[in-house]
């Protein structure tokens, strides 16, 4: 198998922001970040709010200039128009010119990419269809669209020119579980089509499902980088939450004696087992005791546990 080329190369990237009246105070948002993103992979930049994810993305796109360090996309500087022609960007909250309709906006951006009238018409119809925007919505001013519809238009504009690289800042932000599932499906499909995807998200468990490799960022510093399986093997099981009903008081007491945290309201009982092995034992026990299990959910994924451990080891508490 031939080695895949690096699409994004970041070396010792640092960004300081000045603050105060005389700009005498310095805040380091990104600290000597070095990473590479290979062709055809989904790469996740993970970290809590304020970790430096959006700043890193703005540096990749040259919306801000680095204090030091270098960024290369496709081997070129980010501001190179040949680079821009091959990348699609979705910001954290896709603010779009609200007086235009989705179709007008996409046609406008299509012109900036030099697409002919027929190409624009075909591409606009295709991407609107791909992101599930019907014609009735596409012809309404963007100020009349719901948040979910605006997010879809945001994806449509990023995809319009069929870019090789997608840079997505928190693509799961503000979406309900169904919306997240749909975005996951899109990302996997676009990877199958050969696109390279660089995304940032605070949702570690979400990234663990779809990313080939992740980088963990905390307070601007890279804590770890690698595939989720390398960083946190699936055998490292996390805590489990069980939602149950019709549990007798003595069953709850028995579960507490097994080390579970049990909280009950009028209809539901929430049981937190420290690890999945104890969780499945608790599920069996509830069933044997005549209770009904409604749902079993992992509370923390292996990667989330790894991330928390890495933050603790670095001497800082998670934000």
């Amino acid at each position, binding site marked *: 198998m031939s080695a895949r080329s690096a699409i994004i190369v970041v070396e010792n990237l640092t960004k300081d922001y000045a603050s105060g009246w005389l700009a005498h105070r310095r805040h380091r948002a990104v600290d000597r970040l070095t990473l590479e993103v290979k062709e055809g992979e989904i790469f996740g930049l993970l970290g809590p709010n304020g970790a430096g994810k959006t700043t890193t993305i703005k540096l990749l796109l040259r919306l801000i*200039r680095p204090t030091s360090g270098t960024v290369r996309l496709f081997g070129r500087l980010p501001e190179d128009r040949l680079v821009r022609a091959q990348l699609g960007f979705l910001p954290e909250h896709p*603010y779009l010119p609200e007086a235009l309709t989705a179709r007008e906006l996409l046609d*406008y951006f299509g012109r900036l990419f030099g697409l002919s009238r027929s190409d624009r018409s075909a591409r606009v119809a295709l991407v609107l269809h791909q992101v599930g925007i019907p014609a009735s919505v596409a012809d309404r001013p963007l100020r009349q669209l719901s948040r979910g519809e605006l997010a879809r238009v945001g994806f449509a504009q990023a995809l319009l020119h069929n870019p090789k690289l997608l840079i997505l800042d928190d693509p799961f932000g503000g979406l309900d579980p169904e919306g997240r599932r749909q975005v996951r499906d899109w990302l996997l499909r676009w990877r199958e089509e050969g696109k390279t995807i660089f995304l940032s998200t605070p949702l570690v468990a979400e990234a663990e499902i779809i990313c080939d490799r992740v980088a963990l960022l905390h307070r601007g510093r890279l804590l770890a980088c690698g595939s989720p399986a390398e960083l946190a093997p699936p055998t490292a099981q996390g805590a489990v939450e069980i939602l149950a009903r019709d549990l007798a008081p003595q069953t709850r007491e028995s579960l507490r004696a097994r080390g579970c945290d049990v909280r009950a309201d009028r209809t539901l009982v929430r049981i937190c087992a420290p690890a999945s092995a104890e969780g499945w034992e608790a599920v069996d026990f509830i069933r044997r005791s005549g209770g009904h299990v409604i749902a079993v959910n992992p509370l923390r994924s292996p990667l989330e546990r790894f991330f928390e451990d890495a933050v603790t080891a670095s001497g800082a508490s998670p934000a």
Partner: protein
Amino acid sequence: MWAHFSGVRRIAAVALASSRELLRERILYVLVGFALLLIGTALLLGELSVGQERRIVLDVGLGAIRVLGIAMAIVLGVRLLEREIERRAIYILLTKPVRRWEVLLGKLIGGALLLFASVAAMTGGLLLTLAAAGRPWREELPLLLPVVFLFWLQSLMAMAIALLFSTFSTSTLSTLSALGLVLIGHASREFLQWAEVVRSPLLALLCRAFYYALPNMQNLNFTAAAVHGREITLSIIGMASAYVVLYLVVVLILAAIAFHGREFR
């Protein structure tokens, strides 16, 4: 594909989108409507002053076109860019294969087209008012058209100044600064006169610098000529146009430098 694609097309694309956006701004219709109302009011004032209808209608009408044209230029000029920056819509635009100065130029052209249409609509209102006052409006056309054309150039300067401020400042500050500069620009000749009378050479130099830096709005106001039936020659129009083009180029270069260096945190 890229070989056939030029910056002109990108600038045209930005201009088209900008004029589309501005066309849907409610403030535009409010200002044009207000101007038409003022022009219509001139009819009533004209009737009150026997034998002075023409002078009153032209004075009030041209004044309304000039003042509201400039107000429109400043308000829309700031909206062209600053609102996009404040709402962070600019992030997406700047990641497209378009240069920052092309964005500025495209936006100014889009705004200029819309200003042209607005000035044309207000001029139409003035001609209708003249007709309603029983004046032969066709005869007034050769006098009026050069004057409103120069008003349009005036408002273009105001729009470019507003755009320049919005590349590095907030919308409120940009509006106030542009308005201030345009107002002082109506008295820019005073600086030249002060330069003649002050004793300090440094102060004289400063006065001259102000004179050349400020937009010379007086040079583009020929209301009195139109009212008194004096023709505005082609050479005057040509000189005034050349001055405005030169001023726009300088302002756009400054705006491009400021916008190029701007970081979007």
